[in-house]
């Protein structure tokens, strides 16, 4: 069995121009259902510059972002009665007629050879007033990022919830069959654009986990045929081996301060337990000692507790243990299988894989009232990961034989599918807010 690792450690830069590494394979399909969409208008942006057209269509990205959120229905350009680019030109009567609730206008102005100024304004049609206006500098390479930033601000102003259009997702792809498998660890924009290969291997890759500053990914690699945990810096492609002990090295997750990893170690006796690794000192502290399987640890947002999967009561359930190792407390009581916990960043909800009448589905437990809501509809759904605004989740599911990703709002009303043309996609992890 040939097992050399093919590794392309790609420099992860803000600039989208990266030669042949960008694959653009992920596509978003709207498969959402229910939910009320507010009609809005995103007017094509004005342009002042040397070339005939702006180097980038900002309004198209804002439109796509707002539409993809499931909460807005942008109207078609053909239906617009006017296309203002400055506030002075906005005629609220024209928008009222169309029953549009909010209007977004803007313009791009060239200020240098590769320097632009992007301005946008958001208006409330009913109140006839501006809600937010903003101007941002951009280069050709940062236009898309600026468009997402505008969409985030608009979204937050209209919903009260911070937008996540400018965030990223990491996931693993698997192609080929049998002895000819190729695995890649990929980072893409939250809308599926700009897929960049972080690491590539002929052996399995598992459990990607973002550092809180979004600069690093921890993951499990089976290169050399054994499990090893690495932490890789995205910008440079450099990585360090942080755990390669005898037995399983698995399920890494960063602490909220970025200084520690919770991980699963099997050790020489094969007793799988939760440990905490201090990344600076490399000191490992053992948190559980039970003879059951204890794995899939994740941090509470206050950094004081770890939630994990344990089968100490017979089948997998979610438990919570303080980082000082006090006696673990069982959290899930509904159903025979609850595993792979993930806390929402605001600490209010716990997502997990839940066995629901024979189907493995994503469920969210409200930690206040203890209501369990099943959010997904597949039979083999797994790897739930919250968006940093706690309002959406991404997870892995199946479409026919292929692994695909789906996002769902935390209330279950909006669901969308992300499919890749290259084989199986799995193990998504949503980035924190990017700085």
């Amino acid at each position, binding site marked *: 069995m040939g097992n050399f690792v093919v590794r392309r450690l790609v420099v992860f830069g803000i600039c989208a121009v990266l030669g042949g590494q960008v694959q653009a394979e992920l596509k978003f399909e709207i498969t959402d259902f229910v939910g009320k969409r507010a009609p809005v208008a995103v007017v094509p942006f004005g342009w002042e510059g040397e070339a005939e057209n702006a180097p980038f269509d900002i309004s198209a990205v804002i439109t796509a972002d707002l539409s993809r959120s499931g909460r807005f229905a942008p109207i078609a350009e053909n239906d617009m009665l006017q296309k203002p680019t400055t506030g002075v030109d906005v005629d609220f009567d024209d928008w009222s007629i169309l029953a549009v609730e909010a209007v977004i206008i803007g313009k791009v102005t060239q200020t240098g050879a590769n320097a632009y100024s992007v301005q946008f304004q958001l208006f409330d049609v009913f109140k006839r007033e501006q809600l937010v206006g903003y101007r941002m500098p951009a280069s050709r390479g940062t236009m898309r990022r600026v468009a997402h930033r505008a969409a985030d601000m608009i979204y937050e102003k209209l919903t009260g919830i911070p937008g996540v259009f400018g965030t990223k997702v990491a996931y693993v792809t698997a192609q080929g*069959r049998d002895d000819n498998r190729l695995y890649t660890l990929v980072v893409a924009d939250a809308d599926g654009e700009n897929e960049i290969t972080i690491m590539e291997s002929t052996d*399995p890759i*598992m*459990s990607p986990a973002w550092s809180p500053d979004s600069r690093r990914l921890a993951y499990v690699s*089976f290169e050399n*045929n*054994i*499990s090893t945990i690495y932490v890789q810096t995205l910008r440079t492609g450099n990585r360090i081996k942080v755990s390669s002990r005898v*037995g*399983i090295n*698995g*399920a890494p997750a960063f602490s909220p301060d970025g200084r520690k990893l919770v991980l*699963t170690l*099997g050790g020489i*006796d*094969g007793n*799988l337990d939760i440990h905490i690794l201090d990344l600076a000192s490399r000191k490992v502290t053992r948190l559980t000692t039970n003879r059951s*399987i204890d*794995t*899939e640890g994740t941090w509470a947002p206050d950094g004081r507790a770890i939630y994990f*999967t344990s*089968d100490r009561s017979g*089948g*997998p359930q979610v438990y919570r243990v303080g980082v000082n190792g006090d006696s673990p407390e069982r959290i899930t009581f509904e159903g025979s*299988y609850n*595993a*792979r916990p993930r806390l929402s960043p605001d600490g209010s909800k716990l997502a997990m*894989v839940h*066995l629901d009448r024979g189907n*493995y589905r994503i469920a969210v437990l409200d930690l206040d009232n203890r209501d369990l809501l099943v959010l997904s509809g597949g*039979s*083999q759904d*797994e*790897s739930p990961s919250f968006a940093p605004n706690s309002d959406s989740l991404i997870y892995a599911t*199946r479409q026919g*034989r292929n692994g695909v990703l789906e996002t769902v709002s935390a209330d279950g009303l909006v669901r969308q599918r992300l499919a890749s043309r290259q084989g199986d996609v*799995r*193990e998504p992890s949503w980035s924190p807010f990017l700085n």
Partner: protein
Amino acid sequence: MVISLFALGACSSTSDMDEDGSEGSTVSSSDSSGSSATTSASSDGGQLTQEEIRAQNALRQTVFYFDFDVAEFQAEDRDTLTYHARDLAANPGKRFRLEGHADERGTREYNLALGERRANAILNYLIVNGASRSQIEVVSYGEERPAQSGQSEQSYNRNRRVEVIGR
């Protein structure tokens, strides 16, 4: 008379199968791919004894299957595993690797743990029956390396396994 037979490495072995009264030599029969070598001798220099045939057959079995959500090997594999243990005990230079697997249902890291537990269940049995810990490496691949892809019960059954990989 004891005859040592080996495919890899030098080892002399004393048969513990002498205990049950069968005559003569043991057959040390595994090469690196797990298939048995064929040379042997019994004390009358001719055919293999029943015991030797049983041992060879046992050593040829290198995959052990598990029931759903369970880490104990199946009862019918106990004798086969005993032969493996004795073979290791008789050949201290022999090494192999236990690779544990799970079917794809449920979460990946939990399945990685299940695969490890299954491999360890076999490891522990082998050690109790004479093998030395240093002879055996244990690795789990969880659900990542199925023997048969697909979502049928048959695929799942074939994926819940531990494989013995000779080295």
